[in-house]
């Protein structure tokens, strides 16, 4: 009797410790990545890194000013193209999403969020690059926007659904038509939460590399306007990391540090913002 009890007790302790060990193992790579990127990247960070163009192979120094600006440009473009339709589609799903059409939209968004980013790259390549006959910031921005669209749509829908119905009823009771109640009361109440979701989506696409390889491509120089190949931090990290040059590896680590800081800053501040909001997790 006692031995059975002991065995059960032992199994319980064993499995529970195994779960703790699993959680620890899961976090080791995170710590290792953060350590390596900081330790190796910090040496390459200086003023030149933010203000200079890349130097040709063999010359020391130089920076990634064009790639930093390029990444910001691509991300802003993606926001401009991706957020408005995402939010409107989310509003539709939250307000009228019970129809068969609504279910189809929701389903498409979910499926789209699982599509590999590299196939989005091929899609935008055939849609934009082949038509305009050049790699461009515009193509890169569209690719990132396509990746953002399903996230923004579903986040907007989920957060609008968290707004208490009593707010809508109060607005309707005061005589507002439904569309104004939705836009002025519901959407405004949900706006901080939606902003958080959008920030998470932006953080995700800011680090995307695969869809940019054959849309924005790369550029050793400044690119002006939206119709030229554009350098970006993620693509530069890739190119520099797989190159055989020691100096480029150093630059890749520095770029990784900058990119990681950008992404984690967006991510962590979004999550801290949401922590103080009612209803949003």
């Amino acid at each position, binding site marked *: 009797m006692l031995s059975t009890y002991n065995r059960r007790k032992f199994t319980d302790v064993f499995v529970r410790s195994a779960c703790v060990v699993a959680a620890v193992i899961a976090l080791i790579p995170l710590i290792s990545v953060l350590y390596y990127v900081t330790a190796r990247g910090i040496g390459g960070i200086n003023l030149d890194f933010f203000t200079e163009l890349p130097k040709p192979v063999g010359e020391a120094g130089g920076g990634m000013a064009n790639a930093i600006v390029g990444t910001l440009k691509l991300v802003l473009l993606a926001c401009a193209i991706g957020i408005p339709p995402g939010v409107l589609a989310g509003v539709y799903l939250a307000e009228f999403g019970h129809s068969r059409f609504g279910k189809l939209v929701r389903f498409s968004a979910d499926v789209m969020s699982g599509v590999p980013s*590299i196939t989005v790259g091929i899609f935008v390549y055939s849609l934009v690059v082949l038509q305009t006959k050049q790699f461009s910031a515009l193509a890169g921005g569209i690719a990132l926007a396509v990746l953002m669209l399903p996230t923004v749509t579903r986040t907007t829908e989920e957060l609008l659904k968290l707004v208490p119905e009593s707010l809508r009823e109060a607005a309707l009771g005061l005589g507002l038509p439904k569309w104004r109640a939705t836009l002025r009361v519901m959407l405004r109440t949900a706006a901080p939460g939606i902003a958080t979701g959008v920030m998470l989506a932006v953080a995700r696409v800011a680090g995307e590399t695969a869809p940019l390889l054959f849309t924005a491509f790369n550029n050793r120089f400044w690119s002006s306007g939206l119709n030229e190949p554009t350098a970006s931090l993620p693509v530069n990290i890739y190119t520099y990391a797989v190159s055989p040059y020691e100096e480029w590896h150093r630059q890749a680590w520095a770029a990784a540090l900058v990119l990681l800081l950008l992404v984690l800053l967006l991510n962590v501040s979004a999550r801290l913002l949401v922590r103080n909001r009612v209803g949003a997790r």
Partner: protein
Amino acid sequence: MSVSHDVSLVRGRSRMLTRFGREVNWGDFVFRRSTALVAGLVIAVLLAMAIAMVRGSSESIAKFGLHFVFSSAWDPVRDIYGALPFIYGTIASSLLALVFAVPISLGVAIFLSELAPSWLRGPVGFLVELLAAVPSVVYGLWGIFALAPWLRETVEPLLARFLGFLPLFQGPQHGFGMLAGGIILAIMITPTISSVSREVLRAVPSALREGALGLGATPWEAVRVAVLPFARSGLVGATILGLGRALGETMAITMVIGNRAEISASLFAPSYTMASVIANEFTEATGQLYLSALAEVGLLLFVVTVLLNVVARLLVWRVGRLPEGGRL
């Protein structure tokens, strides 16, 4: 004739009535139609994606047919393409990733939803989700300069010494290869599987748990007999979502798997995945047929991941709701 109708005639505009006889608000009408139009854009983009992939690869499909999937000849010079080594590399690396990631992710999920004290759940969950925030290319960089050397100098010699009788652990030890690819994919899909699993476990009614505990079960027994059976299909769904992620992952694995189109039994040997071959060769592909073959690789990847996502979501929906945003 009602009074209200007269008013409308006076103002000189036609009116639309709802089926309850109430006047339709034009703002509402426009609002509903225009948001529906934008929502339709989501479906349109997905459809356009499918059409673009099929059209892009039509030449290759017509030329090679089913042979494309079963042939290992990938020869741009002779313009003959078969994707078998890439398909093998993708499937093998993803399954290897599941071998590492599933036990760990389930452990994390059970820890976070059932066992951890509440003050620990927030921070640990947060850190696991940060794993998902690190860009793929940064994992790749870390893979090249930290993971691969570690595998080459420490892990692979040890494996060869103690398990070298298995074909899995034979051959030259580069560090770069299937093992590195599997590990890096495992790291990247762990947050996906564990966060979906955690949501699934949370959706299990606590009465089940309490019932088991009330009958004298230990906490683990309560999880095993009451929680896991209820959550099973959702956990399978979480795993399939992770698999979908692993199949389509590109940058990190391209940087560590060695990129050689070979099929080898050894985990130490280099391999090549479908996503990697697209990333490496798409911008350099010169011939029309070459591009078309690469697009067909993309099409295969697209179809498989879409199907996996559909199945996974149906399974997860059976248990409960997905985490907010739906992006996994």
